[in-house]
């Protein structure tokens, strides 16, 4: 259901905001970006998700114009900007460390893009205030960046980048320096901001929660290549590679012999820990198998209480191990205690084949 919705939403936006064609970037002998093709639609919240060193930040810097590609072509709104310097590209960046100008007030920081373009002072100030209102920082205009908290600086950086409504906003790990509660609050706010302004957001993060929560589409980056592009649900539910399955959320990866033993078929399979149900081992397995469910029994080796859910590690007879996440509701099977025998069951479609 959610999946079709996402498809229609992105399907209706046909114009292209950012396009990368076979873009490669070498730093000396190191290939940071390897022949990447990427299309970001107008008005989309697009996320580049990957571990550190995967080349995702380099991709962002290539779009901003801070780096020149070794090969390939970069387009913004259909225009070739491969050789265009950063100051002539209609994109603004929110830097990871915010990069606010320390000798300017909040207001001067926010108005900078307008000052540079020679907008009259009265209009400049009015629009800076307006931008500060959007990020809920009224009354902070005359302060200096040093007097602000991390979260407030973050908002100033956002206001500064949004003040003259660029075609694309680039965000480089914008929430990385914030604490968890603030990060979650800002996630909602960023998404809201993107929706109300209609500006294309291209975000870089290593945090899969962030990517899954905010994005219309995600590209999973690894070793300078894109492993998979798609809406969050698709990337999570239908990982295209074993890497994606492991990086986006946690998963049980079963290969070779283990796949045959546990899943019942040869190949490589991913089963999400929350798709496995804990059942009473006494319950006859045959009854469950009838509607396409697979059932195995094992022994609990570890139980970790992780707040809203509990993480069970279960050893299967041949030494295979499965991780199971269970929401902390009531009605846990009697045997769900350390060293207890437990039954596991999952829908066979949830053992999803991934190319290894």
């Amino acid at each position: 259901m959610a999946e079709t919705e996402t498809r229609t939403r992105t399907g209706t936006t046909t114009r292209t905001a950012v396009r990368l064609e076979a873009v490669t970037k070498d730093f000396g002998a190191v290939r940071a970006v390897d022949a990447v093709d990427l299309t970001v639609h107008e008005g989309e919240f697009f996320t580049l998700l990957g571990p550190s060193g995967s080349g995702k930040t380099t991709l962002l810097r290539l779009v901003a114009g801070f780096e020149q590609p070794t090969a390939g072509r970069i387009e913004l709104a259909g225009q070739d900007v491969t050789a265009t310097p950063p100051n002539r590209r209609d994109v603004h960046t929110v830097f990871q460390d915010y990069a606010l100008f320390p000798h300017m007030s909040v207001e001067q920081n926010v108005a900078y893009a307008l000052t540079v373009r020679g907008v009259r002072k009265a209009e400049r100030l009015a629009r800076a205030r307006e931008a500060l209102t959007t990020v809920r920082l009224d009354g902070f205009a005359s302060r200096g960046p040093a007097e602000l908290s991390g979260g407030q600086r973050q908002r100033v950086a956002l206001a500064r980048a949004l003040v003259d409504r660029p075609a694309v906003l680039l965000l480089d790990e914008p929430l990385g320096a914030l604490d968890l509660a603030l990060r979650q609050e800002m996630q909602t706010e960023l998404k809201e901001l993107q929706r109300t302004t209609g500006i294309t957001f291209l975000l870089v993060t290593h945090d899969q929660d962030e990517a899954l929560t905010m994005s219309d589409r995600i590209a999973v980056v690894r070793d300078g290549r894109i492993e998979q592009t798609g809406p969050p649900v698709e990337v999570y539910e239908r990982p295209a590679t074993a890497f994606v399955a492991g990086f986006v959320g946690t998963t049980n990866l079963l290969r070779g012999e283990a796949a045959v033993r546990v899943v019942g078929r040869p190949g490589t399979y991913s089963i999400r820990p929350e798709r496995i149900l804990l059942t009473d081992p006494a319950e006859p397995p045959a009854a469950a198998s009838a509607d396409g469910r697979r059932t195995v029994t094992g022994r609990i080796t570890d139980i970790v209480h992780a707040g809203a859910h509990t993480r069970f590690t279960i050893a299967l007879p041949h030494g295979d191990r499965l991780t199971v996440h269970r929401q902390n509701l009531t009605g846990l099977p009697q045997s769900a205690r350390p060293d207890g025998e437990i039954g596991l069951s999952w829908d066979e479609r949830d053992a999803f084949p991934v190319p290894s």
Partner: protein
Amino acid sequence: MPAAPTPGSRLRLTALLAPPLLWLTLAYLGSLAILLLSAFWATDSFTSDVVHTWNTDNFHELLTTPVYRTIALRTLSIAVAVTVIDALLALPMAFVMARIAGRRWRRPLLVAVLTPLWAGYLVKAYAWRVMLGEDGVVGAALAPFGLHGPGYGTTAVIVVLAYLWLPYMILPVYAALERLPERMLEASADLGAGAWRTLRSVVLPAVRPAVLAGSVFTFSLSLGDYLTVQIVGGKTQLLGNVIAAQVTLDLPMAAALSAVPVVLIVCYLAAVRRAGALDSL
């Protein structure tokens, strides 16, 4: 809970700080005080001996004699000119060192800037005397353009002083530029600013305290210098060499004269302090 200083630790701290503080008070501030005091004494015009009679004649003479005023103003102008020239030279030089030169070139450039500081002052001044002389390198280099060298005089003094104190300006500016995060320049370009705009709005404000800090050196060293002017100054008289000349003839007058650069430097430091430059020293 922060530990209160025990009697033992306090004693040790006192023992540690006493010698330098004593030195500072006696040798440094003490000599300044005596200098100022002797400015209020008189000189026997016949024997040149110092007469310990309290009077303000020296300061009266200093303020009313036009020659002294001219010399003080000339010294001040030269110090300002040297400072401005050094700032103008140091900015691009430090920028290249901190921002453009790669890691391989940064160190050699830094060494090149520092090396002249290790050479003797007199050696450098005399080297300039040779270069600025009748058949010197400077004249020879300018000849093809139909120009003459400045010869010995005020211009030569400015050139040599600007050369001598340049490292004191380059180093703080270089340090400030090196500290300036690359992100700031990127952010400026990202928001639509060209190179000049970024220089004016981001780089210069960031190095302003460093330039002021460097100017404290170039300004005060120029005010107090008396050897350069003797070597390449020709007939130019500056406060420094007037004081030097007076020391043997009329010590109290020399002391009164030397109060002039002290007052000027104190005023300058106060102005610079207001601009917040001393925080970066």
